[in-house]
């Protein structure tokens, strides 16, 4: 299937979709969003790319083997549970640091965000593992 319209629009749609998926990931803590839906969003962006061009092009655009991304995401999620162990809390207890911003104000940074990043990558990786495998010709 080759459609000029789809290809051209995909070319312009793709970067905003990825940026939006990261935006969803980051805003998730306070507003609708989060790692799961963000990962799905990024995954559908690549799926769109694979439909418009081809799976091998999408694989090239993705650069990594999606299975590695899955494993990496799982590792990030797992590691995010470790810091609280040092302050004798249970595994995966949310731990927060307040980072003062140069412009004034304080930014809360916590392990749940890191955990959510892990979820994002796992979802993305799982999705693309399946999509790429299904879409490839035998």
């Amino acid at each position, binding site marked *: 299937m080759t459609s000029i319209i789809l290809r051209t629009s995909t070319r312009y749609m793709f970067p905003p979709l990825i940026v939006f998926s990261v935006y969803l990931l980051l805003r998730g*803590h306070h507003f609708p969003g989060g790692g799961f*839906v963000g990962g799905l969003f990024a995954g559908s962006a690549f799926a769109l790319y694979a439909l418009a061009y081809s799976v091998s092009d999408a694989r090239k655009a993705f650069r990594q083997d999606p299975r590695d991304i899955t494993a990496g995401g799982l590792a990030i999620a797992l590691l995010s549970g470790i810091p609280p162990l040092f302050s004798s809390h249970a595994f995966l207890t949310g731990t927060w640091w307040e980072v003062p911003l140069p412009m004034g104000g304080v930014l809360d940074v916590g392990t749940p965000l890191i955990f959510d990043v892990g979820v994002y990558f796992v979802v993305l990786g799982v999705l693309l593992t*399946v999509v790429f495998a299904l879409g490839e010709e035998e």
Partner: protein
Amino acid sequence: MLTLLSIIFIAALLAPFVHRLCPKYTGAILVTAPIAMVIWLLKKIPEVGHGHPVTESFQWVEKLDLELAFHLDGLSLLFALLISGIGSLIVLYTQGYFKGHPQQGRFMMYIIAFMASMLGVVLADHLLLVFIFWELTSFTSYLLIGFNHNSPDARNAALQAMLVTVLGGLFLMAGIIMLAGAADTWRLSEIIQRGDVLLAHKNYLPILILVCIGAFTKSAQFPFHFWLPNAMQAPTPASAYLHSSTMVKAGVYLLARLHPALGSSEEWTLILTTIGTITFLLGAIMALGQKVLKRLLAYTTVSALGAMIMLLGVGTSYTIKAMATFILAHAFYKAALFLIAGGITHETGGETSVDKLGGLRKAMPISFACAILAGLSMGGFPPFFGFVAKETWLHALDHYPLLVGATVIGGAAYVLVGFAVGFKPFLGKMPAELHAHEIPLSMRFGPIVLGLCCLAFSFFTGSIGHNLVQPAATAIVAKELEVHLHLWAGFNKAFVISLITLMIGIGLYCSRSFLVATAGRLGVLVKFGPDAAYQFLLNGVLKFAAWHTRVLQTGILRDYIRVTVLTTVALVGAALVRAGGFQRWENLAPVSIRIALVAILMISATFATVHSKSRLRSILSMGVVGFCMAILFTFFGAPDLAMTQLVIETLTVILLVLAFHHFPPFRHGSKKRTRATDIIIAASVGITISLLVLAALHVQTPTPVSDFYLEHSYKEAHGRNVVNVILVDFRALDTLGEITVLTIAALGAYALMKLKPKKEEGGE
């Protein structure tokens, strides 16, 4: 204790590497670990002998009340010394036995790991810890019996030993849990002080029976005795170690250990004495007709274990002294004979039958000397330690004429076996086709040390009795007692019985060819024995599994879905009926027009999905249903769900299109009847789930969970989006589990799609 135990475990792990680095001295290097244990134990003898047990305890899992608690008293000391002492000799012996064998490192690893587990069993003070080590010994013995894994016989024997002992282990676990509940403590050292409470407890009999089944399977008591002779498939060092001096005694140890807690009741005496005596006689009689060296020894081991249980069952302080003495005597002569039998087989190129051996005295003089010592000790000839044990034993059974009778028969069988293994291969004329030479140096340590002990112990009876037997017997009966062993107790009744036993034994030995022939003729009876019952049961289980797999695992996706879905309907339906949850239709919110519109759209899209003639149209219609669902979520104020649903639905459509791309052209394949059943199944699912949702509306909790999250979400988790905070913070562990499952599912799907069998690839 924990340190030394860990060192032995580490030695086991390192064994293969040590073997790779210096294959010639593997044994010599690794043996240092158990020798350290022996030295430490020897140093503790005076302290423990004076009634001061050594204890150690480390916190392990606090919430489960699980501690790494160890307790060294007289009984543990006796067993631990035997395990680590004989174990050291076995490790050295293995070096020679497996010389040049590529898998020697693996064998060393198993046997040392076994040694450590066994030490754990006898040293641990926490019941659960005892159980963990107990199971570890079953597991390592499985590896040892099946060491020669190319042989189907070895594999079957290993499986049999494992199944029998692990099955017993399950009973034991139940017993242990009930025991701890009844005594209100996990500590063995405390349990044995609560005998009164336990004897009066309503669960006393179940506990006793469960613990006994566990101990009897492990110690090869009737009717579970059959696995032990079969386990002779193991390489000789393992047989000598596991099946003579250590593992099989774990059951005896456990019962002896629990004697103060569970003993001194009629049930105890009845069960242990009956089973022990049956096993004692059965093993002895079956030994008479055996031809193979190791099987001769194996059946007498079964018999000896029966004797120990029998003596323990009688439970007077005399019989318990006799039992402790016999454990010591038996461990030495039996291990020595096993090692010599292994040496003979090893040096004659694999000859195992007693009747084909003879005249080895010139070729193997050292083995012969050791064999004489051990064989005579086994027969119970003076002045060997076996005689001392037999005297104490007969003396203890003074008031039990029936058991004395049993002892005479059993003892006579021991004489026969002692002669058949200790003398027969060495005397007479050497068959022409037999070539033999003396065992190498590393294999000599074991037989020499053990053989000499069989003799030397008799001359230090006072010291042995005072330092080893007395503390052990004291621990078993849990009251002060004195042990005085004598080599010569005077010309009394026991001595006369002993002499009669020896005479009968020699007579039996002379008529051995007749006995072997009779046993051959009685071989048909095996078909009705417990071994056959085991095979029958095992085959039954396998057949059931095959049938069950054939019925449930059809390999057709729709069958799997049908089973899954119908199970869900049945379970949820049953729960609903029991709760009566589908009777209340009140309190439902009014249906607004927009919701009604979306619902109508959904229903029509569903019909379109089912009726469409093209696959793509079906998929798209199904997508419509999903998108409508997302709209419904937005109506009810769940933007997170709506958003996720939207993306998921999009992706589902893409995935299905991609998947269907691989399918053959669409045809209406299903028959009318199949479609009818499918409609019924689908409708039942729909109805059940709808009812469930309606019922869920009426479930009232005193304080809704959501209040908690709403309250704490921002304060404690710094997040205003409660849904997300639950996912990544409050319930992060669940999420971690979910993404792990997701990963595994993706890998599985990938494997299914990409890794096809080779021949299929060629076909396409």
